[in-house]
Structure formats: structure tokens, C-alpha cells
């Protein structure tokens, strides 16, 4: 049996075992495990746990604010990476300080900062708010979740350093970063599992997506380890895509589906499609991501192996990657229809975050199809499209993961912080700058890549001036994402202190609603709502008269 199928089968068995354990518990060990888990989260940390507060939503708030900061760093590092791609000596003057960044090292650092800092922290922060609500209980330990947010940030910082120089004074920096991150991740996972154990109602489907998405990260690694994938190129490639398809895709899907419903007030469109998203994301291999396993190699301290799949492995991997379109289409369709509802919510300008979710859900399908072709090209050994892989990977991060994760964080911000964002106008500006900068900047960079590939295949050695110009313009346009991140960050930080309190906003909003609405002629509910009517507005039919009118006597 080939390595891909055997690894995936082990993974499916492990996920199914987890599913059974959630329902059945750990037999007589359930109470012991619960008590030990709680002890590890709080008491075992001694006085350290007293450093943070344990109020409701304090953990989610801490994770999300830090994710905004990482979004800024991720955007800046990615911008610098794009710039150095066309001007390698642009930051040469920093060598006086012993810092010699290259385009590759900055891009890699930007990926770590964005994936684990911005996306990961926004996703986990939102999940810490969502899970207790879906399960009808409280988070097992707000304090621990708040505390480990700083550990996660430290781990991301170490990973960003490691992306520049994997070995500092002989120490494997990336492995140290991964170890710190594993500690933080284990604490979050135990916290979620304890919350799950305290549930008072049935587990809703978005909660399943979140918890299985989170637990799939270690399970994917375990499956690869059992199947011996750590030493092979195929195994290393598979690890990257299994974690991308489960930890990132499934968890974000759960967060976004919950947010799409809560933020717009529309019911989640289809339970069947959520189920298809859940099962499909576990069975399939998500094609989004790198064309090699370098990230897994670096983070786990493995020795890199060449990606040389057998014919059976190519067929199985290609089939499972094509199968990923089912959960992708199911998730995207479900999100878009839920957001649109009856075509009223998207026009609500107060819903910061919803435009980001809309963008991410729309871009998911074309970019997944593009990634599918590139991965198929890589697995087949042709590698004609590999020149586009890096930019397409960046598009996946900046046009899918960041909008979905950060959009959810923005939409849930009032519920988490108790205040609205400082300025809805600034949130709109930030969206257009981020989305426009990332979309146009990376599209131009992709065009530059395509020109470079064409010249390479034609055997032309002279670099194209058009490709260079497109590359320059692309990097300059991507700067919009940096400014957008700054505006988002300022908006969220100011909102914590000066944002309108949610209860006050509701009172203000209700004051402009009409108590009664006179219905003189047939009209749509949309028009009635647009006139200021609310759910409690009394609609009063007014009789019409066909009698001829006359002058009003004064």
C-alpha cells in the first residue's frame, strides 16, 4: 500500500476514535482526566496563573488583539519579501547591524507571522468565544487560555527569527519555536476538551468542525509518524497539507459558519453542507499550500527529503486533492448564502468583518482549483507551474485565510469585548486597503511570475522589463495590506477603550426604530425594514378611499 493512503487511513481511524471518545468518554478515567486537566491548566502553574484575569471572554480578547498585531508584522514582512524579489539589495544597509534578509527568508518569516500569528490567533481566539456558547457552558479556564496567548505569541516570534536563521548559536530556533507552540496548543486543546466535557447541550456542527479541526493537528502528525512519513518527501509534503486542510481549513470553517449566522442574524443555511464540510475536510487532502514539505521539515527539525512519489501515491493524492473541492464548495456556498440571507444583511454597513468573510468565501473556490493544478503538476514531476506556487500560496493566505479568520474576529469583536470597534468607517477603509492591496498586488506578482516562467521555458536568458515592472507594482500595491493591518489594529485597540458599549448601541439603535408603520399599499418587508421598522414594530393597515379629494379647510 502506498504511503499516502496508509497515512490517511491511520488518520481517519484516529479521528474516528476521537469522535467515539467524545461520545463515550474515557470510561472510569473520565473524572480523573477531567480533574487532572483542570489542575494542569490552573493550579499546576502556581502564582503565574494569577498574572491574568479570568473574566468571561478575556481569553478571546487577548488572542484576537494579539492577532491584529501579528497581522501588521505579517503584512510588513510579506511586503518586504515581495520587494526584495525584484531588488535583492534593497535592505543591504541593514547588514551593518548583522541583519541580512533575503526575499525567501522574509517571505518565510511573513508566512509564520501571518499563519500562526494573525490567522492562528484570530481563529483560536474566536473559537474560545464560540465553543462555550455552542456547548451551553463556560470555558474551562479563561485564565489559562489568556496566559498561553502570550506563550503562543512568543513561539511565533521565535519562529519568525528561525525563518531568518534556523540555527542561532547552534540552537535549532524553529524547533524551539515549535516546542513552545506545542505547549500553548496543548493547553488550548485541553481547555477545549474540558469545555466539551462540561457541555449541557448537543454538540452543534460548527463546534464539531472547530474541535476536530484543532485535534487533527496532533493526529495528523501522529498518523505520519506511525506511517513513517517523517523521513520521506511524500510524508513531509502530506504533513503540510493535512495540517492545512484540518487545523486551518476545518477550524476556520467552524468559526466562520458560526460567525456568518450570528453576525448577520440569518440562520445557517444548510446542516447537510456543514456535515459535508466536516467529513470532506477530514477525508480529503487540501491542495492549498506549499508544493514541498519545507515548513514541516523546518518546524520539526527533520532532514529534508526529495518529493518523489510513486505512481500509486500520485493517483491517490491527486484523487484526494480533487475530492477536497466538495468540502470547499460546501463551505463556500453555505457561508455565502447564509451571509446574504434575504439580501438585506450584506448592505448593513455596521457589520465589520462580514465583507472580509464574503471575500474569503468567494476566493476559496478559484484559488483551490488553481492550487489543485499546481499540486498535480508537482506530483506528476513535470513542475511546469512551480514558478507560480509561491505567489499562489501567498494568495491563499492573504485572500482566504486572513479574510476568513480576521473577518470572524472583527465580526465577533463586539460580543467578545463588549464594545463596538472605534470606527466603522475606518474598518471599511481597512477592508478595502487590505483586500485591494492583497488582491491586486499578488495578482500582478503572479503575472510577473508567469512571464518569467514563459521566458524560462522559451530559453530566453534576458530578464523581462515588463515582468520586473509588474513585480515592482505588485509589491507597492501590497503595501495596502500593511496600511489596512495598521488601521485594523488601531481600530481594535481604540475600540477596547472608546468603542460604543454594546448595550448602549442597542438602546440607541432601538430609539430610531418606528413604533408603528402605516401600510397604505402592498409593499415588501425589505421596504418596511428600510423605513426604520424593527421586529416589534406594529404594522397598521391604512384604508384607502376612492373619493375625490378637495382642498383642506384651515
Amino acid at each position, binding site marked *: 500500500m502506498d504511503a499516502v493512503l496508509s497515512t490517511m487511513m491511520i488518520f481517519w481511524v484516529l479521528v474516528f476514535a476521537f469522535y467515539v471518545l467524545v461520545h463515550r468518554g474515557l470510561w472510569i478515567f473520565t473524572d480523573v482526566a477531567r480533574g487532572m486537566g483542570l489542575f494542569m491548566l490552573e493550579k499546576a502553574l502556581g502564582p503565574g496563573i494569577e498574572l491574568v484575569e479570568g473574566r468571561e471572554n478575556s481569553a478571546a480578547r487577548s488572542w484576537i488583539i494579539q492577532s491584529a*498585531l501579528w497581522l501588521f508584522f505579517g503584512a510588513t514582512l510579506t511586503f518586504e519579501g515581495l520587494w526584495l524579489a525584484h531588488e535583492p539589495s534593497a535592505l543591504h544597509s541593514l547588514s551593518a547591524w548583522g541583519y541580512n534578509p533575503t526575499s525567501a527568508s522574509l517571505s518565510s518569516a511573513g508566512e509564520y507571522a501571518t499563519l500562526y500569528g494573525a490567522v492562528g490567533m484570530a481563529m483560536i481566539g474566536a473559537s474560545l468565544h464560540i465553543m462555550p456558547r455552542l456547548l451551553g457552558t463556560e470555558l474551562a479556564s479563561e485564565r489559562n487560555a489568556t496566559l498561553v496567548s502570550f506563550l503562543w505569541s512568543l513561539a511565533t516570534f521565535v519562529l519568525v527569527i528561525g525563518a531568518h536563521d534556523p540555527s542561532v548559536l547552534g540552537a535549532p530556533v524553529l524547533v524551539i519555536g515549535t516546542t513552545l507552540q506545542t505547549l500553548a496548543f496543548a493547553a488550548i486543546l485541553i481547555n477545549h476538551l474540558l469545555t466539551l466535557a462540561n457541555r449541557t447541550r448537543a454538540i452543534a456542527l460548527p463546534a464539531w468542525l472547530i474541535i476536530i479541526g484543532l485535534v487533527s493537528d496532533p493526529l495528523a502528525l501522529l498518523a505520519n509518524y506511525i506511517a513513517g512519513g517523517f523521513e520521506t518527501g511524500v510524508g513531509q509534503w502530506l504533513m503540510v497539507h493535512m495540517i492545512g486542510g484540518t487545523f486551518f481549513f476545518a477550524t476556520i470553517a467552524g468559526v466562520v459558519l458560526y460567525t456568518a449566522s450570528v453576525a448577520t442574524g440569518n440562520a445557517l443555511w444548510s446542516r447537510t453542507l456543514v456535515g459535508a464540510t466536516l467529513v470532506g475536510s477530514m477525508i480529503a487532502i487540501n491542495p492549498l499550500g506549499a508544493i514541498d514539505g519545507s515548513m514541516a521539515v523546518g518546524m520539526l527539525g527533520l532532514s529534508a527529503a526529495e518529493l518523489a512519489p510513486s505512481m500509486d501515491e500520485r493517483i491517490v493524492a491527486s484523487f484526494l486533492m480533487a475530492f477536497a473541492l466538495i468540502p470547499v464548495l460546501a463551505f463556500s456556498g453555505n457561508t455565502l448564502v447564509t451571509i446574504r440571507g434575504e439580501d438585506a444583511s450584506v448592505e448593513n454597513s455596521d457589520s465589520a468583518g462580514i465583507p472580509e468573510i464574503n471575500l474569503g468565501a468567494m476566493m476559496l473556490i478559484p484559488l483551490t482549483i488553481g492550487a489543485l493544478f499546481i499540486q498535480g503538476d508537482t506530483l506528476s514531476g513535470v513542475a511546469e507551474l512551480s514558478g507560480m506556487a509561491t505567489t499562489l500560496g501567498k494568495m491563499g493566505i492573504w485572500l482566504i485565510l486572513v479574510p476568513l479568520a480576521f473577518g470572524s474576529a472583527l465580526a465577533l469583536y463586539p460580543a467578545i469585548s463588549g464594545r463596538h470597534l472605534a470606527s466603522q468607517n475606518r474598518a471599511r477603509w481597512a477592508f478595502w486597503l487590505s483586500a485591494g492591496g492583497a488582491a491586486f498586488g499578488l495578482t500582478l506578482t503572479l503575472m510577473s511570475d508567469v512571464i518569467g516562467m514563459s521566458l524560462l521555458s522559451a530559453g530566453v536568458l534576458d530578464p523581462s522589463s515588463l515582468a520586473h515592472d509588474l513585480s515592482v507594482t505588485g509589491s507597492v500595491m501590497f503595501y495596502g495590506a500593511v496600511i489596512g493591518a495598521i488601521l485594523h489594529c488601531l481600530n481594535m485597540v481604540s475600540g477596547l477603550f472608546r468603542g460604543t458599549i454594546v448595550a448602549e448601541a442597542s438602546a440607541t439603535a432601538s430609539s430610531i426604530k418606528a413604533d408603528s408603520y402605516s401600510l397604505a399599499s402592498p409593499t415588501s418587508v425589505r421596504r418596511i425594514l428600510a423605513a426604520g421598522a424593527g421586529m416589534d414594530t406594529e404594522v397598521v393597515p391604512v384604508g384607502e378611499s376612492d373619493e375625490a379629494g378637495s382642498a383642506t379647510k384651515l
Partner: protein
Amino acid sequence: MSSDDESLGGFLQGEQEPSASWAILVLGLVASLTFLTLFSILYPGQNLPVLSDFETFGNLTGGIWFFILGAIFGFFSIIATMITEATRE
């Protein structure tokens, strides 16, 4: 808003002020420009003390530095906002 006694001839006197973070940023910008202007008048053609001794600042060539300075400005805006919002009465 002011009381009715102070509203004369349709003129209303507001009581809000710009946020402290913006005040600090503007003061910093004005102070920097003032320093640079004075230095160029008092010591024309000479390098800036201390700063010009660093290799980095002596070779700020290439367009990327304009963008990086913008990002640094944004970063310090975030820090200034955090500090001033937290200490605001």
C-alpha cells in the same frame, strides 16, 4: 456641548479634544521637522550627529525605505494608541 448661556448667535462651543495619541504623533513630527530645519540652517552641509554615523542611516537608498518608514510610523501609532488609551482619564 456648552450650556444655553454660551450659545450665542447660533454659535456652539464643543468640548471634545483630539485624542492624546494624535497629539503626541503630531508633536513628534513637528519636533523632528523643527530639529532638521534648525540643524540645516545652523550647520549647513553637515551630517546629522550620531544618526549619520550608523551605516544604515547613511545609506538609506532605494524606495523600500519610504514604505518601511511608513510601517514604522504605523507601528508607533499602535504603541502610542495603546499607551494613551490605557492612561486616558
